[in-house]
């Protein structure tokens, strides 16, 4: 009976390091990000400059906000695939309504479909218990259809990007992208909501064990409806920011961000099964994905090879990260 258990104190340096990082899951993510940036700098010396950082931030921000929608919905075991359509809708409506309308009216009109889709998603998932994947996919199809019909009514009026959105999307203040004026409050709000408010706590609880939440007096549909409306609102705001950045309203504007937004949340350590995760990780996940896209853009290789590499890197990053944070 000489075999004794390995005590925590006796753990090797590697073990201690792992424990240290496991308790602070953001650190390994940040390290991953730094490594990617370093690779980029080695491949293209000089690329990592002030301007590049600002550009990366500009593109990471819309992705990070949409990934925030995914983080919150994923905490409840859901997912919101309609964010792309919602963002596109508000962007498109804003750009076309601003031509003839007061900016405030245009803004309200732009956010209206976001609220509606969020409400329908919430009721479908929360009351009718439709699987979120299907529900949000369905509403996104419906939204796209409406947008196409709408588009035909405004072809003649043209489109314009409001100066304010322009400023927000592409402008810089002391070298910092103006989008940060929107993002920092949003991020702080999301982090605070998740960690320090009753609503945030309910998201985790509902995702972890819905019956337990119910027995504690939580009405599932209330939480879920509020959640999907919030998610849609965030997506709508992202759409406005994004149109300021891209400056070309199209019917598929934000669609390409949907899968990356899910990936960013997952890389950031949020469990798609619910109950586990946080927004800080998601932000870094969005940065990692944005840097990775740049990295692959500047690589001289056939498109096929690039995609293969992208797939493997996403898988590797997620796997490595999970390895580090699990078995705490």
């Amino acid at each position, binding site marked *: 009976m000489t075999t004794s258990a390995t005590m925590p104190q006796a753990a090797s340096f590697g073990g201690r390091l792992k424990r240290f990082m496991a308790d602070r899951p953001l650190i390994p993510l940040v390290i991953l990000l730094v490594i990617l940036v370093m690779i980029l700098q080695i491949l293209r010396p000089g*690329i990592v*400059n002030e301007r*590049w950082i600002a550009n990366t931030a500009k593109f990471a921000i819309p992705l990070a906000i949409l990934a925030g929608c995914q983080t919150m919905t994923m905490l409840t075991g859901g997912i919101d695939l309609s964010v792309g359509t919602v963002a596109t809708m508000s962007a498109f409506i804003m750009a076309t309504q601003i031509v003839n309308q007061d900016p405030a009216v245009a803004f309200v009109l732009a956010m209206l479909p976001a609220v509606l889709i969020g409400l329908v998603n919430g009721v479908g998932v929360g009351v009718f218990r439709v699987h979120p994947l299907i529900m949000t996919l369905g509403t996104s199809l419906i939204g796209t259809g409406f947008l196409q019909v709408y588009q035909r009514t405004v*072809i003649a009026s043209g489109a314009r990007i409001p100066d304010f959105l322009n400023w927000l999307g592409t402008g810089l203040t002391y070298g910092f992208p103006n989008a940060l004026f929107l993002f920092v409050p949003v991020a702080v709000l999301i982090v605070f909501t998740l960690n320090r408010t009753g609503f945030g706590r309910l998201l985790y609880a509902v995702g972890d064990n819905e019956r337990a939440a119910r027995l504690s007096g939580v009405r599932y549909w209330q939480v879920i409806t509020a959640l999907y409306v919030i998610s849609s609102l965030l997506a709508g705001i992202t759409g406005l920011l994004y149109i300021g950045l891209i400056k070309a309203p*199209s019917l598929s504007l934000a669609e390409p961000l949907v899968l990356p937004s899910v990936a960013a949340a997952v890389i950031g350590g949020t469990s798609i099964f619910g109950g586990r995760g946080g927004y800080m990780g998601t932000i870094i996940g969005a940065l990692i994905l944005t840097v990775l896209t740049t990295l692959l853009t500047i690589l001289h290789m056939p498109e096929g090879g690039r995609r293969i590499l992208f797939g493997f890197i996403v898988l590797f990053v997620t796997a490595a990260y999970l390895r580090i944070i699990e078995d705490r």
Partner: protein
Amino acid sequence: AGKYTIGISNTVQGNGWREEMICAMKAQALASGEVAKLNIAHRNTDAAGQLEDIRNLISAKVDAIVVNPADPAGIKSGLEEATKAGIVVVAVDQAVTEPSAYIISNNQEQYAYLGAKWLFQQMGGKGEVLYMRGAAGASADSDRDKGFKQALAEFPDVKVAQEVFTGWQQDQAKQQILSFLATGTPINGIWTSGIDNVIVDALVEQQAPMVPVVGADNAGFVGQLNTVKDLVGAAVTNPGSIGGAGVTLALQILDGKKPAQQTVLVEPQLWENATDEGKAKVKTAADPSLSPEWPVSISIPDWTTYTKDQIVACKGPGE
């Protein structure tokens, strides 16, 4: 009202060019007065999905089918069945391999060749070019690649600094150009596969040195050619109104006026703003009232008869 029912099949939805094409079809059908009803299958799908749509149109017993093929060869069997069922088949925008089909097409290879050649000349026959392609694996993209490579071969001193696929997505293209600009790699020209105005935007925003840019005749880009300071560029026409031409061709055949050839090619034009004469042309072409994604060449002389109001209204017969 007219007497024919025309079926339409298209496999890309939500893209300005394709939307214009559909509107041109509707407007032309209305303007011709010969069409009773349009039966439009318009969605995002692949060649197999288009086969499904074509067969559904056959089931619906249309008189003619105007199709923008997802792939030249992939829908051969469906078109063959349509012809067998006595339906007139017209392919627009791209060619198809089915011999019984009539084709009225934009010349994609020529589109790329024309623009690239102009660009390389602007660059003085040497230097580095940023090659921003469309969607990897799309047949229009590979046709354009052929034209681009052909021009490249004529200018041995022009090198491709970077080749990227924009996927014909504005946001992707913008992120790519910004990343590229951040590397500080010097370039002397940019060729785009029609995702053009975001590129000019990026150059302006980043205060990067202006280089010649080739794009398509999208309203946004044509406007930029007129207004953006120091921008030298060329818009190569790639009219979405080819759809209207397809309807005209189909009606001609239904009326018994078969064209001499199976294939009609609409040759692209190049509008540049490097010369005074070119500037004037670009100025007249510009149309700020159109959505920036729509090509400004909203009609094709001899082929379309609708008015601008009609295509913008985007209403077919019976709507």
